[in-house]
């Protein structure tokens, strides 16, 4: 008797369960799709594309605007800060450097120091903490 019970539970019950499972899936395909299917969406963790400060504010450096250009100059030596400090893209950094040269040549801007009236201008970057590390 006990053996018969085990046989029934082993061979007959699973088939009945299987049948019910198949019936459920075949009868309600809509319900299965609607509640928990993956949704097409953009990657919510995607980071914003970084832009340099001049591109972000859409500024083209000009040699007549020597107040802006003096912010890319060291207050101690008058030298132009490099790309690893200013954080500009290549094109803008080249433009800034050439415009500073022009402004210095036109006597708008000193070569060896920063104009003392511009010393308290807001800092666009920190020369002590460059974007890329360097040996100096």
């Amino acid at each position: 008797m006990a053996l018969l019970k085990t046989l029934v539970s082993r061979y007959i019950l699973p088939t009945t369960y299987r049948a019910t499972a198949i019936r459920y899936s075949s009868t309600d395909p809509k319900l299965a799709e609607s509640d928990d299917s993956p949704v097409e969406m953009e990657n919510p963790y995607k980071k914003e594309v970084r832009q340099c400060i001049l591109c972000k504010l859409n500024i083209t450096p000009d040699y007549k605007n020597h107040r802006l250009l003096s912010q890319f100059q060291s207050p101690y030596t008058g030298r132009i800060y490099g790309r690893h400090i200013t954080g500009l893209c290549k094109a803008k950094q080249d433009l800034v450097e050439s415009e500073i040269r022009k402004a210095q040549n036109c006597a708008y801007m000193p070569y060896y120091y920063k104009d003392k009236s511009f010393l308290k201008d807001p800092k666009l970057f920190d020369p002590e903490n460059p974007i890329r590390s360097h040996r100096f």
Partner: protein
Amino acid sequence: MPTYELALMLRAMPKTELKTSLKRISHAIFDRGGIIRSIENLGFRAMPYKTSAHGLVHREANYFVIKMDTGTKAVADLREEYSRDVDVIRQRIFKSQEAFDKTCTLEEELLPPAYRKEVQKMIDVGKTQVNRFKYKFKYNSGLDYYPFQR
């Protein structure tokens, strides 16, 4: 005719004289078939460095920027004429800037070196080149065995 910008520094002088010298300067452009788009006065201020011109040392100047259209061949001529002008301390002529329209490439530049396009190009070039400074053992040296660790 391309547009040029003439950055002018005139010596310290009263307003009436300034007017006549500016007139003279602009007439030099007109005589060579050029036109003036605008004259900007950037004011009278101290120069960042002293400048000697025509036997005098100048520490202050009247700053002007003249936007003009002239023929390319007239530019050298104008520069020569202004260099003889006693009122002009310093003059520079630049081509007027075109509109800068390039997308920012900062994101690509901040990638680690292996992902940067220019570095990848350098590596590709390096693969095609032979390192001339690396010593390579020649098998025809007379030894009948390889002397180094393999």
